[in-house]
């Protein structure tokens, strides 16, 4: 036989009210509900923190990426500047090359004493080869002594010295060859 409930379903609140929780279970149940609430609240807070951290990381990552691109450009700029400076130094050294050589030649020539003169100056590996004539060994000694005090060359070394007894030379002279270092 089919039964009909003409009163309809009772409301949820009424049904809850109808539940009778035994007294012994009320305290544990309340504790369980409280714990669940705390855990849910904590989880919510953590979710929010996580979302903020993700957002913060994304912003930092974007900023870092932009700064890396700028840094790469700056590095290219720095490398280019260093190369330009190296080229500039080379060009300046080339522009000064004649002066440096001129100063050295003038310094050598100015230090040669009255009783000696040069016949050739030639560059050699690590220094210069100087050939000349001197009116005797004393004049040659003066020449070497004068070159010792030079600021543009160092270590004057006598390679050879011999009497120059050619017929076209009126005074007895010494032909000499010296080597000076850079």
């Amino acid at each position, binding site marked *: 036989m089919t039964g009909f409930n003409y009163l309809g379903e009772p409301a949820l609140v009424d049904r809850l009210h109808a539940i009778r929780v035994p007294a012994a279970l009320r305290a544990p149940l309340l504790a369980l509900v409280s714990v669940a609430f705390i855990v849910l609240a904590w989880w919510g807070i953590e979710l929010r923190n*996580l979302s903020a*951290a*993700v957002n*913060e*990381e994304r*912003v*930092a*990552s974007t*900023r*870092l990426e*932009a*700064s*890396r691109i*700028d*840094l790469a*450009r*700056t590095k*290219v*700029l*720095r490398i*280019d*500047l260093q*190369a*330009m*400076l*190296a*080229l*500039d130094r*080379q*060009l*300046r*050294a*080339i*522009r*000064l*090359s*004649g*002066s440096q*050589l*001129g*100063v050295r*030649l*003038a310094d050598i*020539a100015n230090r040669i004493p009255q009783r000696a*003169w*040069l*016949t*050739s*100056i*030639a*560059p050699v590996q690590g220094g210069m080869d100087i050939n000349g004539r001197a009116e005797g060994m004393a004049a040659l000694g003066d020449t070497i002594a004068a070159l010792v005090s030079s600021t543009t060359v160092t270590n004057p070394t006598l390679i050879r010295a011999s009497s120059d007894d050619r017929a*076209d030379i*009126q005074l007895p002279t010494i032909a000499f060859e010296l080597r000076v270092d850079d």
Partner: protein
Amino acid sequence: MRAHALDMYELANHNEASVRQASALRAARARVAADVERLCGQASDGAATASLLRLLSDESKRFNVELRSLAPETIEAPAPSSRRTDTLRSFAVTLNVRGRFRNIVAMLADVPRHEVLVGVRDVTLQTAQRPQSGVVSLDATVRATVYRVGKRTTEESHASQSL
């Protein structure tokens, strides 16, 4: 995650501190580029040779030195060492000049200071006339290198200026 973000912030701050020097670097490069432009000489070997001949002719008159011969060498002279060695092209020339010591030295010092980029490598001096004859003339064999700055530098310079 926060620690990672903090690390990235610190790195970005460090990068940005370096990037802040970029404007100073740009200004410095502009100054150096202008200086290189002023010093770099002729743009082609032909132009450099033509200018060199004019220069030597003028200088020999100015310093009263006789230019006796000029011989370009076929071997490419090595440029001074650099990362951009290939941008500094060069060819060697040997000059023979005759004159008084003081005039030759003055000419050697002056030649590299003109429009043509000439580096004087070395010089060999020998007496041409004996002291007894009055004026002491010297024969000087001058080995020089004529440089020109390659086009690549200019192009690179323009490309990096757009950064």
